[in-house]
């Protein structure tokens, strides 16, 4: 049970700044997911935690120990790699026990007990006598988890542990990981570039881009109150629609439509830099350029959601994609294009015109230059969830 604290953590490789001043606290027993696009520094952060890379600057603390310069083996963390990193020539059991023997801190008996326990937990008892070659991807990953578990580390560090698995297996393993964490309660830092994984697994999610933390929040807050365009577009599939608008007296104005903005919240008063006027005061909020963000599932065919009132506008259907549980409709209105969800079995002809309505509770506005969110029409999340929010630029 460990709290991990990063203070102004930096890592430079020759010419690249991989991690650019992270401040973050991983709470004791928390399942923290780090998500971000490829190359944003997720793995580097994790490897810094593990001690596999040396920080260029900054500090890493585990509970009250400063471990910044500590050898990996002395940090008592266990890492699970994307490609499993099982020793190919050892049986499952040897793989699991190999690291334990190294420490020398376990008796044979204890090792046996722990392996049996872990195998039980992960349901890999049958696999213990096989070599990795004779295991499927999921089985390998489970053994790799087993190896991490038996050492009873202070923290688990996982680097995209599921991304080599196929979709079905990934979903299944996701559930197993959640359950495992519930059982063990070990502090876990989990890196992924898959936002679904981030959303479903994380108690809190760190979104990184370009070596910096963009937002740290529980999944749903991230989804509902993205701190900036990057987060808004990164989280959510299909991505949030972004439309250039002007804001005039509390109304988002576009050539082809006008969307009144409920007197909601100015976003993110902790946000540095974007000293935006609160839209709660409609007069102060006028500006000629803003970006309106609406998620596809918050746009609807007017005929499907009469309950949303008269706030509709017309758009042209470009393409439709059936997703099974819904129909994704690519539309254009004026010079803007957007996507929206429709009922799965709706029949819409490309080229036709549809009447579109929206959920006025789910509108977002972003600064066009900095990308900072300055308005969310929904009510802000409880502040307690947002304590760790760190803005890095």
């Amino acid at each position, binding site marked *: 049970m460990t709290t991990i604290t990063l203070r102004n953590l930096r890592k430079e490789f020759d010419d690249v700044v991989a991690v650019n001043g992270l401040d973050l606290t991983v709470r004791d027993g928390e399942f923290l997911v780090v998500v971000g696009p490829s190359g944003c520094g997720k793995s580097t952060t994790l490897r810094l935690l*593990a*001690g*596999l890379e040396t920080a260029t600057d900054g500090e890493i603390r585990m509970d009250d120990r400063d471990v910044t310069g500590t050898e*990996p*083996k*002395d*940090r008592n*963390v*266990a*890492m699970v*790699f*994307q*490609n499993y*990193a099982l*020793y*190919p*020539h*050892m049986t499952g059991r040897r793989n699991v026990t*190999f*690291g*334990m023997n*190294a*420490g020398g801190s376990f008796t044979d008996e204890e090792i046996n007990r722990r392996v049996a326990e872990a195998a039980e937990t992960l349901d890999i008892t049958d696999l213990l006598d096989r070599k990795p*070659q004779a295991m499927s991807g999921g089985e390998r990953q489970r053994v790799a988890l087993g*190896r991490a578990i038996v*050492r009873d580390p202070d923290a688990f560090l996982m680097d995209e542990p599921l991304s080599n698995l196929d979709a079905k297996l990934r979903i299944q393993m996701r559930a197993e990981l959640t359950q495992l964490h519930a059982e063990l309660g070990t502090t876990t830092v989990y890196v992924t570039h898959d936002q679904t994984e981030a959303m479903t697994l994380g108690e809190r999610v760190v979104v990184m881009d370009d070596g910096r933390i963009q937002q740290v929040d529980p999944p749903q807050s991230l989804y509902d109150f993205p701190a900036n365009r990057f987060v808004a577009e990164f989280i959510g599939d299909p991505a949030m629609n972004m439309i250039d608008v002007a804001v005039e007296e509390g109304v988002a104005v576009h050539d082809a439509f006008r969307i009144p903005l409920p007197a909601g919240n100015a976003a993110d008063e902790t946000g540095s830099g974007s000293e935006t006027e609160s839209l709660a005061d409609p007069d102060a909020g006028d500006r000629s350029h803003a970006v309106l963000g609406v998620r596809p599932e918050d746009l609807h065919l007017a005929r499907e959601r009469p309950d949303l009132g008269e706030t509709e506008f017309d758009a042209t259907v470009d393409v439709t994609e059936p997703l099974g549980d819904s129909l994704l409709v690519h539309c254009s209105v004026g010079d803007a294009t957007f996507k929206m969800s429709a009922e799965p079995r709706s029949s819409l002809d490309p080229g036709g015109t549809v009447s579109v309505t929206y959920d006025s509770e789910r509108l977002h506005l972003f600064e066009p230059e900095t990308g900072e969110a300055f308005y969310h029409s929904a009510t802000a999340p409880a502040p307690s969830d947002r304590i760790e929010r760190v803005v890095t630029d």
Partner: protein
Amino acid sequence: MSTREIFDGRLEAALLLAPTAIVSLVFLYYPTALAFRTSFFDSGFGRVPEFVGLENYASLLGNPEYHSSVLLSVIFAAIVVVGVISVSLYLTFLIHEVDAGQGWYLISVIWPYALPPAVGALVFLFIFHPTLGVLTGPIEALGIELDWFNDGPQAFVVVALAAIWKQIGYNVIFMIAAMKNIPDALTETAELDGVGRLRRLVSVYVPIMTPTLFFLVIIDTIYAFFGTFAFVDLLTSGGPSNATNVLIFDLYREAFSFFNFGTASAKSVVLFLVVAALMAVQFRLTEEYSYYGA
């Protein structure tokens, strides 16, 4: 899963294989076959070969000196192979682990491979000559009396050392590639687990490198049997008391000093059989223990 065999023409394939096959047949298999044949003759330069049946073999069979030469060669090969592999492996590992100057360390340790064996032997003579050697003084200061012109076991050690030293480079070349191919994640996992360096080498790297190691064992075995002639010739001439009279030297001397081609051929057949038998054993072991990546 899928196949690489994308071309079908058998004639084409035969043509492609022809140069190798012809050269092998004409310059490797055919002379070998002739050597087999000669082994049944009493033959030498200027002598009309006389068929003697198995007499050459019989005399080898009844020659205790030759028996000891066979045994000696096998022991010599074992020592050279084990020595080369373990020294190279350790060196490779150090170079793999080192944080700077890898390239220069590598060149430093592989260069003896580029040195002609005869020169290598000569240099060894300079270094370890019992009276003249550069290192003779320092070594004798350690309390080891260098006397390998008279002391068989010492001579054996010196020749083996030279042979090992010369072959390190070749092994390192292959080992470093194999070691670099081991996924970093395995190394890192081991580091996180606090697995010590040596244990990592022995328990993780070596098993994963088995295909390369077996290849090298084969090549080194062949080297130990066939490639060490120059060291024996220049350092000890097989002596003292035949302590370094390995088969290849014995064979060469029989043929080109004594001009007994019949006996020499019989000896080459025996040499061939010994090496082939060892290879067979090694291949069997390979099948059993080698790990081949997915």
